């Protein structure tokens, strides 16, 4: 085994090991150790790009061990330009989340975050269908526990809805995976790439099943209604992981498994996918205009943003797929940041109702500044990360041409303007205007030392959690090549397989 193969396994194994260790320790030590494990996991992640030998596509490095031969199940991990940015994002967000937890108690929460990291990274690295399915499912229950255990007032219902809805999607994923594995006689994604060994009908069936499964996860309108509830109720770190990387499992799966394994099916379904994606963009942004709660608004904005990603995928062009991959990463960074900020605001004001917030610019100028930055990034300001994915999804749709795709491009661009409308409404309610202090805060603030978080200043831990995301938002905006540099060969391989 080369050092890179060790690193590849370590990306999945270290957090899993960390979770086990954290579960055995006492609270304070456990949180520190958990953060340590999450940080150490970054080392193999940083090491992986050095495994990239040339620009010829293909995997940078892989580990392939037969596991259960009767089921065609191999322990096949690999990394390439498509999966690497998402793996790096997973590692980064987990470190930030575990570090963020230092200011509160949460040994079990730290352990769950590490399990989530192992599951999500495993999903992105799997090159075996059955293994992919296993990792995909591993993520479900810890996320359920995070929401149900540390969420808001209505957490149990939201968590139940989340887990049942996504399990519903998993049924389709299982059916799709089994269909493909049985018809092709292998589960190896590298061998299956380009739809090898699958006839037209099987590809249609497989793509339909897989697309429904991933559409639930992404989520694609109209299969999105688990998302707002889950986000609104989830604790801050839960929302960050959920929006930042969990949703990306859906879009990643659609590219790698859906388009990769059943290109004929993808080609056939592309118009439907495109229409639904644009419906998601428009519905998401219109609904956002009417939201009255901070986290719920950001959650619905995810529906719109993921709509752009799915539109990029639906065009099935090189430009569109690359835009989608970029949009994935950008959304992870920006929405992660937004949820951190929403959490910070709710910690201070004890409410997320827009009507009760206001004047943040006066009471906490720094926090308001970062919120403004994140909101402007999220509405797709060129020069920041959010722009590239959205603008080039539109360019890809225009490039595809024809009446349908041109209409979709126009509608998506209008959705972009609506995105600006609701984010400006958010900023106007939260940062401008006179400072409004809700009654609950006033009463607790009078009690001496009641709550340290009422201070307007931003704590070190918060800066630590926010600044990497803000910096990366700017960096990816200025140099999108950071994400795209190694994607062109694998994406070209995907598009060449299309009819």
């Amino acid at each position, binding site marked *: 085994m080369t050092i890179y193969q060790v690193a590849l396994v370590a990306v999945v194994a270290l957090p899993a090991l960390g979770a086990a260790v954290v579960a055995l320790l006492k609270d304070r030590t456990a949180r520190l150790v958990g953060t340590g494990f999450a940080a150490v996991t970054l080392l193999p992640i940083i090491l992986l790009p050095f495994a990239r030998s040339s620009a010829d596509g293909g995997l940078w490095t892989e580990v392939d061990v037969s596991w259960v031969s009767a089921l065609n199940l191999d322990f096949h991990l690999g990394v390439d330009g498509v999966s690497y940015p998402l793996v790096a994002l997973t590692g980064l967000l987990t470190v930030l989340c575990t570090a963020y937890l230092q200011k509160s108690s949460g040994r079990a929460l730290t352990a769950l975050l590490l399990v989530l990291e192992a599951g999500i990274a495993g999903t992105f690295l799997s090159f075996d269908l059955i293994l992919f399915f296993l990792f995909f499912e591993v993520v479900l229950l810890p996320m359920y526990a995070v929401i149900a255990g540390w969420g808001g007032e209505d957490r149990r219902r939201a968590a139940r809805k989340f887990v049942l809805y996504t399990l519903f999607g998993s049924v389709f994923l299982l059916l799709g995976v089994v269909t493909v594995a049985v018809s092709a006689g292998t589960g190896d994604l590298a061998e299956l790439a380009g739809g090898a060994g699958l006839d037209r009908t099987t590809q249609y069936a497989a793509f339909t099943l897989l697309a429904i499964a991933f559409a639930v996860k992404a989520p694609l*309108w109209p299969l999105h209604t688990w998302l707002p509830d889950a986000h609104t109720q989830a604790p801050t770190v839960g929302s960050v992981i959920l929006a930042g990387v969990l949703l990306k499992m859906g879009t990643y799966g659609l590219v790698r498994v859906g388009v990769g394994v059943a290109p004929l099916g993808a080609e056939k379904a592309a118009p439907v996918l495109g229409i639904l994606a644009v419906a998601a963009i428009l519905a998401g942004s*219109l609904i956002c205009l009417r939201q009255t709660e901070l986290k719920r608004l950001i959650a619905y904005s995810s529906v719109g943003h993921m709509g752009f990603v799915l539109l990029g995928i639906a065009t099935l062009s090189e430009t569109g797929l690359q835009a989608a991959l970029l949009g994935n990463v950008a959304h992870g960074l920006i929405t992660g940041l937004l949820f951190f900020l929403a959490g910070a605001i709710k910690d201070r004001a004890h409410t997320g109702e827009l009507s009760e917030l206001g004047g943040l610019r006066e009471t906490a100028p720094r926090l308001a*500044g970062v919120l403004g930055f994140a909101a402007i990034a999220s509405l797709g*300001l*060129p020069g920041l990360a959010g*722009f590239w994915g959205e603008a080039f999804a539109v360019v890809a749709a*225009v490039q595809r041409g024809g009446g349908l795709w041109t209409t979709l491009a126009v509608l998506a661009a209008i959705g972009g303007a609506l995105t600006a409308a609701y984010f*400006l409404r958010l900023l106007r309610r939260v940062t401008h205007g006179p400072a409004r202090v809700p009654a609950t805060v006033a009463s607790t603030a009078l009690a001496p030392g009641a709550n340290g978080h009422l201070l307007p200043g931003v704590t070190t831990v918060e800066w630590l959690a926010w600044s990497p995301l803000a910096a990366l938002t700017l960096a990816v905006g200025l140099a999108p090549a950071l994400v795209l540099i190694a994607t062109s060969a694998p994406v070209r391989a995907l598009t060449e397989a299309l009819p």
Partner: protein
Amino acid sequence: MTAALIPGVPLLLGLIGLLLPPGDGDRRRPAATLGIAGAAASLLVTLSLLLFAHKPIDVSTHWVSIGGIDLTIGFTVGVAALYVALAVATVALFVQIYSVAYLHDDPRYAPYAAQVSLFTGAMLLVVTSGDLIGVLVGWEVMGACSYLLIGHDRRLPEAPAAAVKAFLVTRVGDVGFLLGVAVLIAGAGTSRIADLRTHDYSSGTLTAALLLILAGVAGKSAQFPLHTWLPDAMAGPTPISALIHAATMVAAGVYVVFRLYPLYDESPAALATLGVMAAITILLGALSATAQDDMKRVLAWSTVSQIGYMTGALAVGSPAAALFHLLTHAAFKALLFLAAGAVIHAVGTNYLSRMGGLREHMPVTFWSFVVGLGALAGVPPLSGFWSKENVLTAAAHATEGGGTAPVWVGWVVWLAALFAVLITAWYATRLLLCAFFGISREHGPDGPDWEIGFDDARYTAPAVPHDPPGAMRWPILILTIPAALLGLVAYAPGFRTALEMEDPHLSVALVLPLVLLAAGAGAAWWLWQAVPGADPAAALGPARHLFASGFHLDTIQDRLVVRPVRAIAKVVTATDEKVVDAAVEGTGTGTTGVGNALAVAHRVPLPTAAVAVLAGALLLGAVAVWFGAAT
């Protein structure tokens, strides 16, 4: 890559400035230093390139490839671009210096100065970028900065709404801009402007793309029907108004059309649309300016009208005249706004009805206003006269045919521009008379408040307005020089060749605009003389209200766009909750219900259960017999 420094330095210093802590006193110094240094550096680089570099400068490096589309970071800087950059950097420098004094008691000065730097850098990026994506970046960053700066003043309740309006209205136009850029890029497979300008598009695609881009231009350059944000944007601090109106933002749209002019020159439909838009805007802006009571709004509407002259010049095939007017307008409009800031600073109100008699107390400001308004109206030999004359000549020339645009476009633009000369002279004179002549109306029609003291009842002693402090006075004074004399550079051969402008010729065609100018100014003066102290706008009669409200276009926009979008949002949200989510929840509750029913069925008492079992056995038996008989 020296050219990259022109936008790069202010952008970088602006980003650093955003990290500075807000605060008063000494903490303002680093912010002011960064702000002024950024603009000054751009100015110096621009000047040195203008004087010493071999032009045009064209540098580019590969940025990123998305699919088959190669994006570059490139800077294409010709002499024309350098002139515009010079204007932008100069105005920005003066605005930065002026703001130090104007915002002397504002604790949020630090982010303000940084945002002005970013704003300047973004505009300079639009001016210098050789790549359409670079233009787009600057274009949108400017929109975001204008949003932040217009909403800066916390004391004005209308500021946040005005800021949102400015961003959203321009953003609506940018939907078109983005799509137009997408069409151009998708067609050519590159985003380098030099390549796009020579790419051979089919005429349908080209016209569609150019019309879409015009939507963005209308938004940024405040052209009908997307001009509604500009008058409201007066809620921003006055130096910001100067910046937005003079050199950044509104000039960006005109400049982008200038950059893409070879493409526009192939599309009569796009130029005709631009011409109609320009003619409407010229008259709309000028008429609306006649009835405003807010001094800044008079200037704002005059900007709308003057930008119309620029787009009109573009439409009739004279990008040189457009750019010339852009430069002179930058000079006199920056002067006017900074001088207006001095007036507002001194009397504490924007309203003309509360001013009057300022001439004696504020001589510097008064004479600056005379120069600025004279240039605006086109009084010879001030700068505005020469550039406006160029536009009129170009339009008159277009009425003879031979250009790309249809002949009627030439007529429409020429007539609108001529008529607007009259109106412009009228409202400029009115503004000058109402603000600086007559007696002070500071206390309204009822006179000053009574004040009861121990000794006797007396009037409140009126505060004597005065010329502004040095940091505000010097920028104003220096700006009077280009506002007065910039027009004469039309005689400089280097300038003419750079803009590809024709030789200035003073012909008999000049007489008509000059007569109109005199008529407009004379009418306003006559009205003022007839009833001293009364606003000449009263003579407008019933039209006054219509003009003051900008032809009610805000209301129409609200009815046609804002309310429908809100209504649709309401319906979509209701559908999402009552249909989409209800289906999901219904599946859940339905399943639970069925489960409960089955659970109840499992708990029935023994006799019923026994009957059920027997009935079941009977049924199965019957089925077995049935099928047995069938086979």
